[in-house]
């Protein structure tokens, strides 16, 4: 069925502003940047996530969508971006995850190859906010020394993240998308889970 919702009100400038925020987010891991176009997102999707989809996806991208989403989202994605929906996470250029507490194992997605590490999956993960999760300290490119963050991601996710980051330059990049804000988590960011570390000392 054809979607009932419009896309960006001002396609060129909204996409450019959103793209700049996404670039900034990856350049400054762990920092929060605004994405707030006047956009009506499909049910179950945040404004920031919808804007990121409209900005990044086109008819050449394969998108994997986590089950549990509204069917209207698929119609909306197909109509406005022309992207292909795939059921194989290994073949996906982008992956849409509805809830930060239920991110699948990162090893299931495409990590790129030694020759083409950029041909990897980029995850768009929706989160409820920025402070309800386990506290994690990030180090790596784009961070002066270290930066503490606590987005609502499961400890399982950080476990998978810690298994992935030593494989650099292979790996996936993650955008965390709240209602109107975004945080980037590139594969260069090494995470140290503080609560886990404290537990180890006892």
């Amino acid at each position, binding site marked *: *069925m*054809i*979607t*009932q*919702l*419009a*896309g960006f009100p001002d*396609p060129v400038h909204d996409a450019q502003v959103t793209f700049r925020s996404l670039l900034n987010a990856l350049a400054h891991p762990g920092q929060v940047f605004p994405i707030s176009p006047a956009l009506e997102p499909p049910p179950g999707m945040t404004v920031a996530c919808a804007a990121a989809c409209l900005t990044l996806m086109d008819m050449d991208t394969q998108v994997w969508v986590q089950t549990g989403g509204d069917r209207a989202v698929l119609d909306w994605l197909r*109509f*406005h971006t022309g992207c292909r929906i795939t059921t194989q996470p290994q073949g996906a250029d982008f992956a849409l995850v509805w809830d930060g507490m239920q991110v699948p194992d990162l090893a299931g997605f495409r990590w790129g190859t030694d020759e083409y590490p950029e041909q990897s999956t980029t995850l768009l993960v929706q989160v409820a906010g920025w402070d309800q999760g386990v506290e994690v300290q990030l180090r790596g490119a784009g961070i002066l020394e270290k930066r503490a963050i606590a987005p609502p991601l499961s400890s399982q996710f950080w476990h998978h993240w810690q298994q992935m980051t030593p494989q650099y330059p292979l790996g996936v990049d993650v955008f965390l998308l709240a209602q109107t804000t975004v945080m980037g988590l590139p594969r260069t960011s090494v995470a140290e889970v503080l609560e886990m570390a404290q537990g180890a000392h006892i």
Partner: protein
Amino acid sequence: MTSIKPRQLWMATLAKASLEALESRVAMLGELPPYRFLRPPEIGLVMVQGRMDGSGEPFCVGEMTLTRCVVKLEADLDTGLDVDEGGGAIAGFGYVSGRSHRHAELAAICDALLQHPVWYDPVQETVVEFLQTLAQQQKEIQQRQVEATKVNFFTLDRKQ
């Protein structure tokens, strides 16, 4: 959903009509129901493919400029007839050659109205049938002009 064939016909008629003719006929419809853009008019390129002699291997003729637009009719509370059988609001598509935003918009509105049970008749009579007659007349004029300059090569030696 209406069957594919009539919709193809009216979409082709609307797309091939001249903007002036389309604009003047749509103006005769009076006040149109409210609508909004699902996809505002946008200009792009499409690759046109052809076949040599209509039956050969397909090849790319070249790119052509195309403007497309999708409108959605706003809910019509008076008639309650704003939904199609699938339960969704009526969406009209306009794909026209060239760079005219207005042409794509008008074609999309007419396509949406032609799917509307109340608007079908007036739009069909005022806009589509008129444009079809116009196109037919122009085709005949052109055919006559071509016919007048036709040359028969009687002297060609046709070997079987």
